[in-house]
């Protein structure tokens, strides 16, 4: 909120260093490891963007696929006529507008209704796009031909992840971030101290939606051929929720802890047991919710607290 503390400076420095090291990866490998790393940074960007909104508000959004798909289609539709950077900006705008509309319509409803609505929305958008394409064009999908290689996509996603992190960090230190903390604690109090709760939540949802759409736009050239079932794949929404919950949403870097192991495991499963992927995802979801409800970061904090207690239990028990 005020000047940077030494811990925050260290955190920022460490983050920058990690991104710089990660950026070197394509120099060493452009095959399997690069490919799986693209998946990792993609989900890192998606999960942190998702947690940006869902972490403090506790609203579980399943609309990730909708924003992602809109970003992908922004590129698919415009790649022949507009420069790529402009398309990224358009994707961000489309994602933000969509999030704004959804937010205005649904953030007053809470809990499970919001979850269902966002899921329904993603499916609706997918059906609309499919319908439009079959009605007005001959092909089911769109071709995206670019000069972009896997390395370029990797670097762009990495940069996006960095920007999302920095944005989360800045929001946490801003009035908006403080407002979200108060809302997360007690929404009634929030309203009565003067916070426009609906507006704060919509702004945050728009930022989150815009970032997810940019991630979709960056990844579009990777598909080469875009069609609704892949761009608006509901699996994306579910995976993002699972990974973010696995990592824990209380800390900024929490989702990352979930993304890296999960992406690697998913890759292993989908290549070795391609017909059983859904079962494994389902089991993973159950295991995470039952065994580590606060995610890996929550688990680490619990252990840290227990460790501290064990280190200094004598003080409390000594008779006066």
């Amino acid at each position, binding site marked *: *909120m*005020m000047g940077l503390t030494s811990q925050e400076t260290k955190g920022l420095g460490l983050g920058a260093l990690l991104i710089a090291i990660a950026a070197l990866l394509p120099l060493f490998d452009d095959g399997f490891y690069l490919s799986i790393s693209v998946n990792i940074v993609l989900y890192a960007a998606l999960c942190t963007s998702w947690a940006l909104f869902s972490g403090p508000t506790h609203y579980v959004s399943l609309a990730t696929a909708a924003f992602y798909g809109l970003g992908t289609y922004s590129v698919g539709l415009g790649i022949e006529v507009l420069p790529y950077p402009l398309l990224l900006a358009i994707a961000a705008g489309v994602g933000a507008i969509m999030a704004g509309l959804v937010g205005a319509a649904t953030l007053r409803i809470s809990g499970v209704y919001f979850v269902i609505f966002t899921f329904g929305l993603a499916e609706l958008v997918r059906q609309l796009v499919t319908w439009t394409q079959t009605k007005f064009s001959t092909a089911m999908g769109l071709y995206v031909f670019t000069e972009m290689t896997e390395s370029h996509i990797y670097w762009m996603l990495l940069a996006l992840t960095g920007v999302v992190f920095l944005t989360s960090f800045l929001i946490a230190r801003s*009035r908006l971030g*403080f*407002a979200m*903390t*108060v809302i*997360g*604690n*007690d929404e*009634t*109090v*929030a*309203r*009565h*101290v*003067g*916070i*426009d*709760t609906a507006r704060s939540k919509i702004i945050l949802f728009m930022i989150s939606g815009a970032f997810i759409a940019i991630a979709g736009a960056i990844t579009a050239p990777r598909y080469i051929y875009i069609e609704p079932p892949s761009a608006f794949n509901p699996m994306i929404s579910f995976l993002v929720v699972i990974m973010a919950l696995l990592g824990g949403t209380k800390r900024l870097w929490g989702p990352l802890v979930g993304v890296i192991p999960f992406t690697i495991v998913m890759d292993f499963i989908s290549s070795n047991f391609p017909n059983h992927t859904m079962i494994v995802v389902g089991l993973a979801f159950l295991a995470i919710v039952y065994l580590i409800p606060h995610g890996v970061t929550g688990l680490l904090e619990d252990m840290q607290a227990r460790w501290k207690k064990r280190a200094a239990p004598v003080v409390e028990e000594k008779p006066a």
Partner: protein
Amino acid sequence: MTAALSIRAARKAFGGLVAVNDVSFEVKQGELLGLIGPNGSGKTTMLNLISGALPPTAGEILLDGRRISGLPAHAIARQGVSRTFQLVRVLPSLDAEENVMSGAVFGHVRLWGEDARRVARVMLDRVGLGERAHMPVAAMTYIDQKRVELARALAANPRVLLLDEWLAGLNPSELQIGISLIDELRHEGRTIVMVEHVMDAIRSLCDRCVVMSSGRMIAEGGVAETLSDPEVVRAYLGDDDA
């Protein structure tokens, strides 16, 4: 001079139940008004209409001559109405200082950074919690949580302060502390509306009081005369004792 707060024929109906039935009264600048009445008489609902937690069904509420009824709660808070809650509401994941800062950051004064922190410190000192600024509020006793809530309301430097049974649930010694704290606020010239059941507090603190029963206002005036009004006695004790 216009009144700090004017309630004009305020009405709140929940379906067929009329919780507040065309109530009108005024609160002058610097006055401490007690809003009293038996349980279920509509006092808290009245307070909710003023703070915007509920929109009135009819009638209007004016703050310094400007209409605030119909505005959402956050807009009313920014106009300068702060409140505490009947069942204490603190922000459990934050410490005392951050709790109080929330009042200064988003409310009537809208400070940020060090300025907000400074106000929070002053207010915590004001309610006697200066030493415990960094204590997590979840670990605090009931009266200390109530103090945090009061400090949070004061941090917005409100034009009107609404206290909803702020003294309820305190033990006798805490009650003395609480009463003298409110008395100090009154001497500072704060405009306060206080819903209260503790009669000692009403007698020693209030300049005037408004008595409600079954949603209606049945008496208004000086404390001693109002409390001896036969209709008020009947509302509290039943017909036989009047």
